[in-house]
Protein backbone atom coordinates (compact mmCIF):
# COMPACT_ATOMS: atom_id res chain seq x y z
CA UNK A 1 0.00 0.00 0.00
CA UNK A 2 1.29 3.39 -0.94
CA UNK A 3 1.56 5.70 2.06
CA UNK A 4 0.78 9.22 0.99
CA UNK A 5 2.98 12.19 1.85
CA UNK A 6 0.45 13.89 4.10
CA UNK A 7 0.16 10.82 6.28
CA UNK A 8 3.90 10.43 6.39
CA UNK A 9 4.59 13.83 7.97
CA UNK A 10 3.01 13.18 11.40
CA UNK A 11 4.44 9.67 11.55
CA UNK A 12 7.92 10.98 10.77
CA UNK A 13 7.54 13.75 13.38
CA UNK A 14 6.48 11.29 16.09
CA UNK A 15 9.21 8.79 15.13
CA UNK A 16 11.84 11.52 15.13
CA UNK A 17 10.71 12.76 18.53
CA UNK A 18 10.92 9.25 19.94
CA UNK A 19 14.33 8.67 18.35
CA UNK A 20 15.82 11.96 19.52
CA UNK A 21 14.47 11.52 23.07
CA UNK A 22 15.84 7.99 23.13
CA UNK A 23 19.31 9.07 22.00
CA UNK A 24 19.36 11.97 24.43
CA UNK A 25 18.29 9.70 27.24
CA UNK A 26 20.99 7.17 26.36
CA UNK A 27 23.68 9.88 26.21
CA UNK A 28 22.32 11.72 29.29
CA UNK A 29 22.02 14.99 27.38
CA UNK A 30 19.54 17.55 28.61
CA UNK A 31 17.31 18.02 25.61
CA UNK A 32 14.01 19.28 26.90
CA UNK A 33 13.68 22.55 28.67
CA UNK A 34 13.06 21.94 32.38
CA UNK A 35 10.47 24.72 32.31
CA UNK A 36 8.16 22.87 29.95
CA UNK A 37 6.82 19.46 30.91
CA UNK A 38 7.44 16.80 28.30
CA UNK A 39 3.91 15.47 28.74
CA UNK A 40 2.54 18.76 27.40
CA UNK A 41 4.78 18.45 24.36
CA UNK A 42 3.60 14.89 23.70
CA UNK A 43 -0.05 15.92 23.92
CA UNK A 44 0.54 18.90 21.63
CA UNK A 45 2.29 16.87 18.97
CA UNK A 46 -0.19 14.00 19.29
CA UNK A 47 -3.22 16.25 18.86
CA UNK A 48 -1.74 18.21 15.99
CA UNK A 49 -0.98 14.94 14.22
CA UNK A 50 -4.47 13.58 14.84
CA UNK A 51 -6.11 16.76 13.54
CA UNK A 52 -3.82 16.78 10.54
CA UNK A 53 -4.65 13.14 9.78
CA UNK A 54 -8.36 13.87 9.75
CA UNK A 55 -7.82 16.85 7.48
CA UNK A 56 -5.71 14.70 5.22
CA UNK A 57 -8.29 11.91 5.05
CA UNK A 58 -10.92 14.29 3.69
CA UNK A 59 -8.51 15.31 0.97
CA UNK A 60 -8.66 11.76 -0.35
CA UNK A 61 -12.45 11.98 -0.43
CA UNK A 62 -13.43 10.46 2.91
CA UNK A 63 -16.45 12.03 4.61
CA UNK A 64 -15.84 12.79 8.25
CA UNK A 65 -19.01 13.48 10.21
CA UNK A 66 -18.82 16.65 12.29
CA UNK A 67 -21.42 17.40 14.95
CA UNK A 68 -23.49 20.52 14.47
CA UNK A 69 -23.38 23.28 17.05
CA UNK A 70 -26.91 24.68 17.65
CA UNK A 71 -25.63 28.14 18.56
CA UNK A 72 -23.84 28.39 15.25
CA UNK A 73 -26.90 27.36 13.25
CA UNK A 74 -28.94 29.91 15.19
CA UNK A 75 -26.90 32.81 13.76
CA UNK A 76 -28.77 32.56 10.46
CA UNK A 77 -32.11 32.54 12.29
CA UNK A 78 -31.05 35.58 14.30
CA UNK A 79 -30.08 37.56 11.20
CA UNK A 80 -33.24 36.56 9.32
CA UNK A 81 -35.47 37.52 12.26
CA UNK A 82 -33.80 40.92 12.57
CA UNK A 83 -34.42 41.59 8.88
CA UNK A 84 -38.08 40.68 9.30
CA UNK A 85 -38.38 43.11 12.19
CA UNK A 86 -36.35 45.75 10.40
CA UNK A 87 -33.82 45.96 13.21
CA UNK A 88 -30.02 45.85 12.96
CA UNK A 89 -27.74 42.99 14.02
CA UNK A 90 -25.10 43.66 16.67
CA UNK A 91 -21.86 41.68 16.82
CA UNK A 92 -18.93 42.12 19.18
CA UNK A 93 -15.91 40.02 20.05
CA UNK A 94 -14.93 41.84 23.21
CA UNK A 95 -11.42 42.56 24.31
CA UNK A 96 -9.66 39.96 22.25
CA UNK A 97 -6.55 41.06 20.44
CA UNK A 98 -4.21 39.11 18.27
CA UNK A 99 -1.44 39.73 20.82
CA UNK A 100 -3.09 38.76 24.10
CA UNK A 101 -3.38 35.36 25.71
CA UNK A 102 -6.91 35.27 24.32
CA UNK A 103 -5.82 35.58 20.70
CA UNK A 104 -7.44 32.22 19.82
CA UNK A 105 -10.81 33.47 21.04
CA UNK A 106 -10.32 36.68 19.09
CA UNK A 107 -9.71 34.65 15.94
CA UNK A 108 -12.81 32.60 16.73
CA UNK A 109 -14.82 35.78 17.28
CA UNK A 110 -13.65 37.12 13.92
CA UNK A 111 -14.80 33.85 12.35
CA UNK A 112 -18.28 34.39 13.77
CA UNK A 113 -18.27 38.06 12.68
CA UNK A 114 -17.26 37.06 9.18
CA UNK A 115 -20.09 34.51 9.06
CA UNK A 116 -22.61 37.02 10.42
CA UNK A 117 -21.43 39.67 7.92
CA UNK A 118 -21.98 37.28 5.02
CA UNK A 119 -25.46 36.43 6.28
CA UNK A 120 -26.24 40.13 6.72
CA UNK A 121 -25.20 40.63 3.11
CA UNK A 122 -27.33 37.68 2.03
CA UNK A 123 -30.46 38.89 3.81
CA UNK A 124 -29.74 42.60 3.47
CA UNK A 125 -29.49 43.20 7.21
CA UNK A 126 -27.75 46.16 8.81
CA UNK A 127 -24.76 45.05 10.84
CA UNK A 128 -23.23 46.94 13.75
CA UNK A 129 -19.87 45.60 14.92
CA UNK A 130 -18.61 47.28 18.09
CA UNK A 131 -14.98 47.10 19.13
CA UNK A 132 -13.05 47.49 22.33
CA UNK A 133 -9.58 47.16 20.86
CA UNK A 134 -8.11 49.70 18.46
CA UNK A 135 -5.74 47.15 16.89
CA UNK A 136 -8.70 45.33 15.40
CA UNK A 137 -10.36 48.26 13.59
CA UNK A 138 -8.76 47.58 10.22
CA UNK A 139 -9.37 43.83 10.42
CA UNK A 140 -13.00 44.27 11.42
CA UNK A 141 -13.69 46.76 8.65
CA UNK A 142 -12.16 44.35 6.18
CA UNK A 143 -14.19 41.40 7.47
CA UNK A 144 -17.49 43.30 7.37
CA UNK A 145 -16.74 44.76 3.94
CA UNK A 146 -15.82 41.32 2.64
CA UNK A 147 -19.09 39.91 4.00
CA UNK A 148 -21.24 42.45 2.18
CA UNK A 149 -19.18 42.39 -1.02
CA UNK A 150 -19.11 38.61 -1.29
CA UNK A 151 -22.90 38.54 -0.94
CA UNK A 152 -23.14 41.02 -3.79
CA UNK A 153 -24.48 43.89 -1.65
CA UNK A 154 -21.64 46.42 -1.60
CA UNK A 155 -24.14 49.30 -1.32
CA UNK A 156 -25.03 48.18 2.23
CA UNK A 157 -21.50 48.66 3.50
CA UNK A 158 -20.91 51.92 5.36
CA UNK A 159 -17.80 51.77 7.56
CA UNK A 160 -18.92 54.55 9.91
CA UNK A 161 -22.20 52.81 10.61
CA UNK A 162 -21.10 49.17 10.48
CA UNK A 163 -17.86 49.29 12.42
CA UNK A 164 -17.69 51.30 15.62
CA UNK A 165 -14.61 51.51 17.75
CA UNK A 166 -15.84 52.70 21.14
CA UNK A 167 -13.01 52.80 23.67
CA UNK A 168 -10.43 50.48 25.15
CA UNK A 169 -11.55 50.97 28.76
CA UNK A 170 -13.55 47.99 29.98
CA UNK A 171 -16.56 49.62 31.61
CA UNK A 172 -16.70 52.60 29.30
CA UNK A 173 -16.88 50.03 26.51
CA UNK A 174 -19.58 48.11 28.36
CA UNK A 175 -21.74 51.18 28.81
CA UNK A 176 -21.21 52.25 25.20
CA UNK A 177 -22.26 48.84 23.91
CA UNK A 178 -25.25 48.93 26.22
CA UNK A 179 -26.26 52.31 24.82
CA UNK A 180 -25.76 51.11 21.24
CA UNK A 181 -27.95 48.05 21.84
CA UNK A 182 -30.79 50.11 23.26
CA UNK A 183 -30.64 53.22 21.06
CA UNK A 184 -30.27 51.26 17.84
CA UNK A 185 -32.92 48.80 19.05
CA UNK A 186 -31.03 45.78 17.76
CA UNK A 187 -32.89 42.64 16.73
CA UNK A 188 -30.03 40.24 17.31
CA UNK A 189 -27.13 40.42 19.70
CA UNK A 190 -24.23 38.13 18.82
CA UNK A 191 -21.50 38.19 21.43
CA UNK A 192 -18.65 35.75 20.83
CA UNK A 193 -15.07 36.14 21.99
CA UNK A 194 -13.15 36.65 25.21
CA UNK A 195 -15.36 38.51 27.72
CA UNK A 196 -14.83 39.76 31.21
CA UNK A 197 -17.21 41.32 33.72
CA UNK A 198 -19.04 43.16 30.92
CA UNK A 199 -20.67 39.96 29.62
CA UNK A 200 -23.80 40.21 31.78
CA UNK A 201 -24.18 43.92 31.01
CA UNK A 202 -24.37 43.09 27.29
CA UNK A 203 -26.85 40.28 27.84
CA UNK A 204 -29.19 42.26 30.07
CA UNK A 205 -29.13 45.24 27.72
CA UNK A 206 -29.98 42.87 24.85
CA UNK A 207 -32.77 41.41 26.95
CA UNK A 208 -34.20 44.89 27.56
CA UNK A 209 -34.80 45.35 23.81
CA UNK A 210 -35.91 41.71 23.44
CA UNK A 211 -33.08 40.89 21.06
CA UNK A 212 -32.36 37.36 19.90
CA UNK A 213 -29.17 36.59 21.79
CA UNK A 214 -26.32 34.29 20.84
CA UNK A 215 -23.30 34.31 23.10
CA UNK A 216 -20.13 32.35 23.52
CA UNK A 217 -16.80 32.44 25.26
CA UNK A 218 -14.11 30.07 26.39
CA UNK A 219 -13.47 32.12 29.53
CA UNK A 220 -14.83 29.88 32.26
CA UNK A 221 -15.91 32.69 34.59
CA UNK A 222 -18.33 34.18 32.08
CA UNK A 223 -19.81 30.97 30.67
CA UNK A 224 -22.50 30.70 33.40
CA UNK A 225 -23.83 34.19 32.63
CA UNK A 226 -24.09 33.43 28.94
CA UNK A 227 -25.70 30.04 29.44
CA UNK A 228 -28.33 31.50 31.76
CA UNK A 229 -29.20 34.59 29.74
CA UNK A 230 -28.61 33.86 26.05
CA UNK A 231 -31.02 32.09 23.71
CA UNK A 232 -28.16 30.02 22.34
CA UNK A 233 -24.65 29.75 23.65
CA UNK A 234 -21.30 28.39 22.58
CA UNK A 235 -19.81 26.65 25.58
CA UNK A 236 -16.04 26.51 25.96
CA UNK A 237 -14.26 24.94 23.05
CA UNK A 238 -17.31 25.19 20.76
CA UNK A 239 -16.24 28.79 20.22
CA UNK A 240 -13.10 27.66 18.43
CA UNK A 241 -15.06 25.40 16.12
CA UNK A 242 -17.16 28.36 14.92
CA UNK A 243 -14.47 29.63 12.57
CA UNK A 244 -14.18 26.24 10.91
CA UNK A 245 -17.96 25.84 10.66
CA UNK A 246 -18.21 29.31 9.09
CA UNK A 247 -15.76 28.33 6.36
CA UNK A 248 -17.97 25.39 5.36
CA UNK A 249 -14.85 23.80 3.89
CA UNK A 250 -14.81 20.03 4.49
CA UNK A 251 -11.10 19.82 5.12
CA UNK A 252 -11.17 22.60 7.69
CA UNK A 253 -14.22 21.05 9.35
CA UNK A 254 -12.45 17.73 9.71
CA UNK A 255 -9.96 19.35 12.08
CA UNK A 256 -12.74 19.68 14.66
CA UNK A 257 -12.68 15.90 14.87
CA UNK A 258 -9.19 16.28 16.31
CA UNK A 259 -10.72 18.27 19.16
CA UNK A 260 -13.06 15.40 19.97
CA UNK A 261 -10.22 12.88 19.86
CA UNK A 262 -8.38 15.14 22.29
CA UNK A 263 -11.36 15.04 24.62
CA UNK A 264 -11.44 11.27 24.46
CA UNK A 265 -7.71 11.18 25.18
CA UNK A 266 -8.20 13.49 28.18
CA UNK A 267 -10.90 11.24 29.61
CA UNK A 268 -8.63 8.22 29.22
CA UNK A 269 -5.73 10.09 30.83
CA UNK A 270 -7.90 11.21 33.76
CA UNK A 271 -9.12 7.66 34.43
CA UNK A 272 -5.58 6.32 34.05
CA UNK A 273 -4.31 9.05 36.35
CA UNK A 274 -6.83 8.14 39.04
CA UNK A 275 -5.94 4.45 38.76
CA UNK A 276 -2.21 5.22 38.96
CA UNK A 277 -2.77 7.49 41.94
CA UNK A 278 -4.63 4.65 43.67
CA UNK A 279 -1.65 2.42 42.87
CA UNK A 280 0.60 5.02 44.51
CA UNK A 281 2.30 6.77 41.57
CA UNK A 282 1.67 10.12 39.98
CA UNK A 283 1.10 9.94 36.25
CA UNK A 284 2.70 13.33 35.65
CA UNK A 285 6.01 12.01 36.95
CA UNK A 286 5.79 8.98 34.68
CA UNK A 287 4.96 11.13 31.65
CA UNK A 288 7.71 13.63 32.33
CA UNK A 289 10.57 11.16 32.65
CA UNK A 290 12.15 12.45 29.44
CA UNK A 291 13.40 15.73 30.79
CA UNK A 292 14.03 14.45 34.28
CA UNK A 293 16.81 12.13 33.12
CA UNK A 294 18.63 14.90 31.28
Amino acid at each position, binding site marked *: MKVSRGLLIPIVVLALTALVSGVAWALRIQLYS*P*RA*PFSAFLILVGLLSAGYLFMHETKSGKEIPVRRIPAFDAIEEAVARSVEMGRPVHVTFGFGTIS*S*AHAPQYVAGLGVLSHAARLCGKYGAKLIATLGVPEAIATTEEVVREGYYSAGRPELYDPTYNVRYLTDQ*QFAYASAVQATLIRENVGANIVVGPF*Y*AESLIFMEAGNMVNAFQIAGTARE*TQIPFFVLTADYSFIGEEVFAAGALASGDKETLASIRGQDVGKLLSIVLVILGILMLLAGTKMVDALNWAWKVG
Partner: protein
Amino acid sequence: MSEMSALRSLEKVLGSKELLYTLLLLSVILPILHPLGIPVEISKRTLDVYEYVDKKLPPGCHVYIEVYYEVAARGELEPNLIALTKHLFDKGCKIVYGSLSAFGVVAFSLFKTMAADLFEDKVYGRDYVYLGYIAGSEAATASLARSIRGTISVDNYGNRLEDLPLMREVDKATDFDLVIIVSSGTDVFAYYVRQWHTPYGVPLLFAALSVIGPSIEPFVGAGQAIGMLVGQRSAAEYEVLVGRLGLGIASMDAQSTSHMLIVAFIAIGNAIYWSKRVSSQRGGSK
Protein backbone atom coordinates in the same frame (compact mmCIF):
# COMPACT_ATOMS: atom_id res chain seq x y z
CA MET B 1 -60.03 34.28 34.83
CA SER B 2 -59.84 37.14 37.30
CA GLU B 3 -57.38 35.04 39.28
CA MET B 4 -55.14 34.91 36.22
CA SER B 5 -55.32 38.62 35.55
CA ALA B 6 -54.64 39.36 39.23
CA LEU B 7 -51.58 37.13 39.04
CA ARG B 8 -50.46 38.85 35.88
CA SER B 9 -50.72 42.30 37.36
CA LEU B 10 -48.92 41.08 40.50
CA GLU B 11 -46.17 39.70 38.31
CA LYS B 12 -46.03 42.97 36.43
CA VAL B 13 -45.49 44.92 39.64
CA LEU B 14 -43.05 42.47 41.25
CA GLY B 15 -41.30 41.69 38.00
CA SER B 16 -40.75 45.31 37.14
CA LYS B 17 -37.10 46.16 37.08
CA GLU B 18 -37.70 49.53 38.73
CA LEU B 19 -39.03 48.00 41.95
CA LEU B 20 -36.27 45.41 42.15
CA TYR B 21 -33.56 47.96 41.43
CA THR B 22 -34.86 50.47 43.97
CA LEU B 23 -35.12 47.87 46.72
CA LEU B 24 -31.67 46.57 45.86
CA LEU B 25 -30.17 50.05 46.01
CA LEU B 26 -31.72 50.58 49.45
CA SER B 27 -30.58 47.18 50.66
CA VAL B 28 -26.99 48.07 49.78
CA ILE B 29 -26.95 51.65 51.09
CA LEU B 30 -28.94 51.34 54.34
CA PRO B 31 -26.77 48.67 56.05
CA ILE B 32 -23.64 50.69 55.28
CA LEU B 33 -25.19 53.75 56.95
CA HIS B 34 -26.65 51.72 59.83
CA PRO B 35 -24.62 48.54 60.33
CA LEU B 36 -26.54 45.56 61.65
CA GLY B 37 -23.46 44.01 63.18
CA ILE B 38 -24.17 40.40 62.25
CA PRO B 39 -21.19 38.35 63.52
CA VAL B 40 -18.81 36.94 60.89
CA GLU B 41 -17.91 33.29 61.09
CA ILE B 42 -14.41 32.34 59.94
CA SER B 43 -14.37 29.83 57.10
CA LYS B 44 -11.81 27.08 57.01
CA ARG B 45 -10.14 28.27 53.85
CA THR B 46 -9.51 31.76 55.20
CA LEU B 47 -8.25 30.25 58.42
CA ASP B 48 -5.90 28.03 56.42
CA VAL B 49 -4.44 31.07 54.70
CA TYR B 50 -4.07 32.90 58.00
CA GLU B 51 -2.37 29.91 59.62
CA TYR B 52 0.00 29.56 56.67
CA VAL B 53 1.09 33.18 56.85
CA ASP B 54 1.26 33.01 60.64
CA LYS B 55 3.09 29.71 61.10
CA LYS B 56 4.93 28.84 57.88
CA LEU B 57 6.49 32.21 57.10
CA PRO B 58 9.66 32.98 59.01
CA PRO B 59 9.83 36.39 60.74
CA GLY B 60 11.52 38.92 58.47
CA CYS B 61 10.49 36.99 55.37
CA HIS B 62 10.25 38.47 51.88
CA VAL B 63 6.92 38.64 50.09
CA TYR B 64 6.05 39.79 46.59
CA ILE B 65 2.57 41.25 46.06
CA GLU B 66 1.10 41.76 42.61
CA VAL B 67 -1.38 44.68 42.68
CA TYR B 68 -3.54 44.16 39.61
CA TYR B 69 -6.95 45.74 39.91
CA GLU B 70 -8.70 48.83 38.64
CA VAL B 71 -10.67 51.24 40.80
CA ALA B 72 -13.93 49.44 39.97
CA ALA B 73 -12.75 46.33 41.82
CA ARG B 74 -11.34 48.29 44.75
CA GLY B 75 -14.26 47.56 47.06
CA GLU B 76 -13.66 43.84 47.04
CA LEU B 77 -9.89 43.62 46.72
CA GLU B 78 -8.48 46.54 48.71
CA PRO B 79 -9.75 45.21 52.08
CA ASN B 80 -8.03 41.90 51.31
CA LEU B 81 -4.80 43.68 50.40
CA ILE B 82 -4.88 45.85 53.53
CA ALA B 83 -5.56 42.91 55.85
CA LEU B 84 -2.78 40.83 54.28
CA THR B 85 -0.31 43.72 54.41
CA LYS B 86 -1.16 44.31 58.06
CA HIS B 87 -0.55 40.65 58.88
CA LEU B 88 2.76 40.57 56.99
CA PHE B 89 4.04 43.82 58.51
CA ASP B 90 3.07 42.55 61.99
CA LYS B 91 5.28 39.55 61.37
CA GLY B 92 8.12 41.82 60.30
CA CYS B 93 8.00 40.72 56.68
CA LYS B 94 9.37 42.91 53.90
CA ILE B 95 7.14 43.46 50.91
CA VAL B 96 7.86 44.19 47.26
CA TYR B 97 4.77 45.42 45.41
CA GLY B 98 4.51 45.40 41.64
CA SER B 99 1.83 45.87 38.99
CA LEU B 100 1.56 44.23 35.61
CA SER B 101 -1.09 46.76 34.66
CA ALA B 102 -1.02 50.52 34.35
CA PHE B 103 -4.12 50.91 36.55
CA GLY B 104 -2.32 49.09 39.35
CA VAL B 105 -0.34 52.28 39.97
CA VAL B 106 -3.47 54.24 40.87
CA ALA B 107 -4.82 51.31 42.89
CA PHE B 108 -1.58 51.19 44.87
CA SER B 109 -1.58 54.89 45.65
CA LEU B 110 -5.19 54.69 46.84
CA PHE B 111 -4.37 51.62 48.92
CA LYS B 112 -1.47 53.46 50.57
CA THR B 113 -3.72 56.38 51.43
CA MET B 114 -6.37 54.06 52.89
CA ALA B 115 -3.85 52.09 54.94
CA ALA B 116 -1.62 55.00 55.96
CA ASP B 117 -1.47 53.69 59.55
CA LEU B 118 0.29 50.52 58.38
CA PHE B 119 3.03 52.41 56.58
CA GLU B 120 3.64 54.97 59.35
CA ASP B 121 6.69 53.36 60.93
CA LYS B 122 7.88 51.63 57.77
CA VAL B 123 10.77 52.96 55.73
CA TYR B 124 10.47 52.98 51.96
CA GLY B 125 13.25 50.99 50.36
CA ARG B 126 14.02 49.04 53.51
CA ASP B 127 10.66 47.56 54.52
CA TYR B 128 8.73 47.87 51.30
CA VAL B 129 9.19 48.85 47.67
CA TYR B 130 6.71 49.58 44.91
CA LEU B 131 8.05 48.68 41.48
CA GLY B 132 5.22 50.41 39.61
CA TYR B 133 3.84 49.38 36.24
CA ILE B 134 5.83 46.69 34.50
CA ALA B 135 4.87 46.33 30.84
CA GLY B 136 4.83 43.02 28.98
CA SER B 137 2.26 40.84 30.79
CA GLU B 138 3.27 37.17 30.76
CA ALA B 139 6.70 37.71 29.22
CA ALA B 140 7.38 40.30 31.93
CA THR B 141 6.22 37.84 34.61
CA ALA B 142 8.70 35.29 33.33
CA SER B 143 11.44 37.88 33.18
CA LEU B 144 10.74 39.10 36.74
CA ALA B 145 10.99 35.53 38.00
CA ARG B 146 14.52 35.31 36.58
CA SER B 147 15.64 38.72 37.75
CA ILE B 148 13.77 41.82 38.85
CA ARG B 149 16.78 44.08 38.37
CA GLY B 150 17.29 42.53 34.92
CA THR B 151 13.74 43.47 33.95
CA ILE B 152 13.41 47.00 35.24
CA SER B 153 15.99 49.46 36.52
CA VAL B 154 13.91 51.97 38.49
CA ASP B 155 10.92 51.72 40.83
CA ASN B 156 7.64 53.62 40.53
CA TYR B 157 9.15 56.79 41.98
CA GLY B 158 12.24 56.80 39.79
CA ASN B 159 14.68 55.43 42.41
CA ARG B 160 17.34 53.14 41.01
CA LEU B 161 16.75 49.61 42.29
CA GLU B 162 20.43 49.19 43.28
CA ASP B 163 20.03 52.07 45.71
CA LEU B 164 17.18 50.39 47.61
CA PRO B 165 18.40 48.09 50.42
CA LEU B 166 15.44 45.73 50.06
CA MET B 167 16.09 45.23 46.36
CA ARG B 168 19.66 44.21 47.13
CA GLU B 169 18.24 41.39 49.31
CA VAL B 170 15.83 40.03 46.73
CA ASP B 171 16.07 39.71 42.97
CA LYS B 172 14.58 36.46 41.65
CA ALA B 173 11.52 34.32 42.27
CA THR B 174 13.25 31.94 44.67
CA ASP B 175 14.25 34.84 46.96
CA PHE B 176 10.62 35.22 48.00
CA ASP B 177 8.92 33.13 50.67
CA LEU B 178 5.45 33.89 49.35
CA VAL B 179 3.92 35.55 46.33
CA ILE B 180 0.47 37.11 46.73
CA ILE B 181 -1.56 37.97 43.65
CA VAL B 182 -4.34 40.47 44.26
CA SER B 183 -6.09 40.62 40.93
CA SER B 184 -9.40 41.49 39.34
CA GLY B 185 -8.52 39.51 36.20
CA THR B 186 -8.22 35.75 35.77
CA ASP B 187 -5.22 35.62 33.49
CA VAL B 188 -2.70 37.02 35.94
CA PHE B 189 -3.16 34.07 38.29
CA ALA B 190 -2.28 31.73 35.44
CA TYR B 191 0.80 33.84 34.54
CA TYR B 192 2.19 33.38 38.03
CA VAL B 193 1.32 29.68 38.14
CA ARG B 194 3.07 29.15 34.80
CA GLN B 195 6.06 31.44 35.27
CA TRP B 196 6.72 31.48 39.01
CA HIS B 197 5.24 28.34 40.53
CA THR B 198 5.85 25.66 37.88
CA PRO B 199 9.52 26.41 37.18
CA TYR B 200 10.62 27.71 40.60
CA GLY B 201 8.12 26.22 43.05
CA VAL B 202 7.38 29.54 44.79
CA PRO B 203 4.27 29.31 47.02
CA LEU B 204 1.43 31.45 45.67
CA LEU B 205 -1.56 32.96 47.45
CA PHE B 206 -4.54 34.32 45.52
CA ALA B 207 -6.87 37.17 46.39
CA ALA B 208 -9.66 37.40 43.83
CA LEU B 209 -13.11 38.79 43.15
CA SER B 210 -16.02 36.50 44.03
CA VAL B 211 -16.91 36.03 40.36
CA ILE B 212 -13.36 34.96 39.55
CA GLY B 213 -13.15 32.55 42.51
CA PRO B 214 -14.59 29.47 40.81
CA SER B 215 -12.20 29.66 37.87
CA ILE B 216 -9.02 29.76 39.95
CA GLU B 217 -10.25 27.12 42.38
CA PRO B 218 -8.61 24.32 40.31
CA PHE B 219 -5.15 25.87 40.93
CA VAL B 220 -5.73 25.73 44.68
CA GLY B 221 -7.11 22.19 44.42
CA ALA B 222 -4.02 21.09 42.50
CA GLY B 223 -1.73 22.56 45.15
CA GLN B 224 -0.35 25.22 42.82
CA ALA B 225 -1.47 27.85 45.31
CA ILE B 226 -1.49 27.56 49.08
CA GLY B 227 -4.94 29.08 49.30
CA MET B 228 -7.17 31.90 48.23
CA LEU B 229 -9.14 34.81 49.62
CA VAL B 230 -12.29 35.42 47.63
CA GLY B 231 -14.18 38.67 47.71
CA GLN B 232 -15.62 40.67 50.56
CA ARG B 233 -16.43 37.69 52.75
CA SER B 234 -12.80 36.57 52.95
CA ALA B 235 -11.70 40.16 53.49
CA ALA B 236 -14.11 40.50 56.41
CA GLU B 237 -12.89 37.24 57.93
CA TYR B 238 -9.25 38.20 57.52
CA GLU B 239 -9.91 41.61 59.04
CA VAL B 240 -11.35 39.90 62.10
CA LEU B 241 -8.34 37.56 62.28
CA VAL B 242 -5.71 40.32 62.08
CA GLY B 243 -7.72 42.71 64.21
CA ARG B 244 -7.97 45.68 61.88
CA LEU B 245 -11.61 46.14 61.01
CA GLY B 246 -12.18 48.01 57.79
CA LEU B 247 -14.31 48.19 54.67
CA GLY B 248 -14.49 44.41 54.31
CA ILE B 249 -16.49 43.90 57.49
CA ALA B 250 -18.44 47.12 56.95
CA SER B 251 -19.82 45.89 53.66
CA MET B 252 -20.68 42.39 54.90
CA ASP B 253 -24.09 43.54 56.16
CA ALA B 254 -24.85 45.13 52.80
CA GLN B 255 -23.82 41.90 51.11
CA SER B 256 -26.12 39.93 53.41
CA THR B 257 -29.17 42.15 52.93
CA SER B 258 -28.79 42.41 49.16
CA HIS B 259 -28.33 38.65 48.85
CA MET B 260 -31.41 38.06 50.99
CA LEU B 261 -33.42 40.42 48.80
CA ILE B 262 -32.37 38.46 45.73
CA VAL B 263 -33.37 35.21 47.47
CA ALA B 264 -36.75 36.75 48.29
CA PHE B 265 -37.25 37.78 44.68
CA ILE B 266 -36.26 34.34 43.44
CA ALA B 267 -38.87 32.88 45.79
CA ILE B 268 -41.55 35.34 44.62
CA GLY B 269 -40.67 34.68 40.98
CA ASN B 270 -41.08 30.96 41.54
CA ALA B 271 -44.31 31.35 43.46
CA ILE B 272 -45.85 33.39 40.64
CA TYR B 273 -44.50 31.03 38.01
CA TRP B 274 -45.98 27.98 39.69
CA SER B 275 -49.32 29.50 40.58
CA LYS B 276 -49.64 30.63 36.96
CA ARG B 277 -48.74 27.18 35.75
CA VAL B 278 -51.22 25.50 38.08
CA SER B 279 -54.05 27.92 37.28
CA SER B 280 -53.43 27.68 33.53
CA GLN B 281 -53.60 23.89 33.81
CA ARG B 282 -56.90 24.24 35.64
CA GLY B 283 -58.03 26.77 33.07
CA GLY B 284 -57.05 24.41 30.27
CA SER B 285 -59.63 21.81 31.39
CA LYS B 286 -62.59 24.14 31.30
